[in-house]
C-alpha cells in the first residue's frame, strides 16, 4: 500500500513544488552571499543551508512536506492567487528552520553556536525587514516573528525537560508538540497571511491551521523515527515521544518498572529497541497515535475550508495537510 505522501505526491511532488523549493533556496543563498559580513561567516551560514537543501532535494518525500518552504507560499497564494511575492518570506522561514536544525550539530560540538544563532536571529529578521511591503506591515510581521520564536523556544525547553523522565503524560507530549513544531508552522502561516494583508479573522484561521499541521506532523514524524528509522535517535536519547508515553500510561507497578528499565536498555542495545517497538505495536500505541494525528489533520482541513483559499493553492494546502495522515 502507498504511504500517505505517495497518495498525495501528484499535488506535492510535481514540477511546481520542486520549482518552489528551488526558488526559495536560491533566494536564501543569494541573500547570504549579499549580507554575510565576512567570507568565514558566509561559509559558516551557507554550508548548513546548502546541506539542508541537498538533504531535501535528495528526498522527494521530505521535499514535498517541508512546511518552511510550502506553507508560507501556499497561504499567500491562497489569499492573493500568486506565489512569487511570498518567495522572500519563505526564504526567511527556510533560514529560520536551518538555524533550528543546526542547533543539533551545535549540541554535538560539530558547528559553532554563533552560526546557528545568526541563522535564527539575524538573517530571517533582515529578510523580513526587506520584504516588499508597507513599513507598518513589516513591523507587524517582525513582531509576529519575535513572538513565534519566543513560543518555540519555550516549547524546546519543555521538550528537553521530558527526556528520560519517568512521569510524563500524553497530554503534556501533545502540548509540547504544539508548543514546538505547532508554533513553528503557525508562525510560517501567520506571517504569510499578514504579508497578504488578510483580515485578522482569516489570518487567525491560517495560524491555527499551521499549528495543527505542525503538531500533527511532529507526532507523525516521532512515530516514523521510533518504528521505522533504524537509527532510532529518540530511543537512544531517551526521548519520551507520544507512542512511548501512551504505553507507559497503561502500565502499573512491576510492568511499568520493567518497561522503564527496557527503555533505559534501549538507549544502548539494538535488541532492546526492537523489543520496545514490538511492545508498543502490540499494546496499540501506534494505532492510538495514528488516530490522534488524524484529529490534527481533520482540524487543519476544517480550518482550511473555513479560510477558503483560492485554487490551486487550496488543493496543494489540502494535500500538504493530508500528507501527515496514516489514512490517505
Amino acid at each position, binding site marked *: 500500500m502507498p504511504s500517505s505522501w505517495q497518495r498525495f505526491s501528484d499535488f506535492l511532488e510535481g514540477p511546481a513544488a520542486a520549482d518552489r523549493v528551488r526558488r526559495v533556496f536560491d533566494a536564501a543563498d543569494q541573500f547570504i552571499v549579499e549580507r554575510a559580513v565576512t567570507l568565514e561567516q558566509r561559509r559558516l551560514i551557507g554550508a548548513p543551508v546548502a546541506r539542508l537543501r541537498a538533504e531535501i532535494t535528495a528526498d522527494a518525500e521530505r521535499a514535498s512536506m517541508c512546511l518552511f518552504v510550502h506553507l508560507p507560499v501556499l497561504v499567500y497564494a491562497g489569499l492573493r492567487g500568486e506565489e512569487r511575492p511570498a518567495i522572500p518570506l519563505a526564504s526567511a522561514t527556510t533560514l529560520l528552520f536551518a538555524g533550528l536544525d543546526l542547533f543539533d550539530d551545535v549540541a554535538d560540538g560539530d558547528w559553532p553556536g554563533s552560526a546557528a544563532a545568526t541563522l535564527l536571529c539575524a538573517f530571517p529578521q533582515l529578510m523580513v525587514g526587506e520584504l516588499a511591503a508597507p513599513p507598518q506591515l513589516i513591523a507587524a510581521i517582525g513582531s509576529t516573528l519575535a513572538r513565534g520564536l519566543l513560543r518555540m523556544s519555550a516549547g524546546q525547553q519543555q521538550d528537553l525537560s521530558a527526556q528520560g523522565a519517568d512521569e510524563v503524560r500524553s497530554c503534556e507530549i501533545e502540548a509540547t508538540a504544539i508548543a514546538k513544531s505547532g508554533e513553528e508552522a503557525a508562525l510560517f502561516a501567520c506571517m504569510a497571511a499578514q504579508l497578504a494583508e488578510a483580515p485578522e479573522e482569516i489570518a487567525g484561521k491560517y495560524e491555527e491551521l499551521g499549528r495543527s499541521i505542525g503538531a500533527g506532523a511532529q507526532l507523525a514524524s516521532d512515530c516514523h523515527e521510533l518504528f521505522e528509522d533504524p537509527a532510532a535517535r529518540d530511543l537512544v536519547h531517551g526521548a519520551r515521544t507520544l507512542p512511548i508515553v501512551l504505553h507507559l500510561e497503561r502500565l502499573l507497578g512491576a510492568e511499568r518498572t520493567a518497561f522503564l528499565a527496557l527503555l533505559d536498555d534501549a538507549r544502548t542495545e539494538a535488541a532492546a529497541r526492537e523489543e520496545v517497538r514490538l511492545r508498543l505495536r502490540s499494546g496499540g500505541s501506534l494505532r492510538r497515535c495514528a488516530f490522534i494525528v488524524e484529529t490534527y489533520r481533520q482540524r487543519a482541513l476544517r480550518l482550511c475550508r473555513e479560510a477558503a483559499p483560492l485554487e490551486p493553492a487550496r488543493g496543494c494546502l489540502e494535500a500538504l495537510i493530508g500528507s501527515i495522515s*496514516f*489514512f490517505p
Partner: protein
Amino acid sequence: MSRQAVEQLIDRWMNDPSFRNEVRSDPEAAVRRTGADLTDDELAAVRSVDWNLPDEELRVRTNNGA
C-alpha cells in the same frame, strides 16, 4: 475530557472484538452508540480512519513529517 473519550474508545476497540466489528462496519454509528462526547474534528477522524488496516500496515505508513 474529549481526548479521554478518544482514549477510552481506542482501548475498547483494542480489547472488545464485538465493538471492533461494529466500528469496522459503521464507525460513526458505533461510536455514537457509546455516547462518547467527541468534538467535530474527532468525529471526522473516526470517519476517515481505516479501521480495517492491520498494525503492520500502519507501521509502514508512518512518514517523516515536515
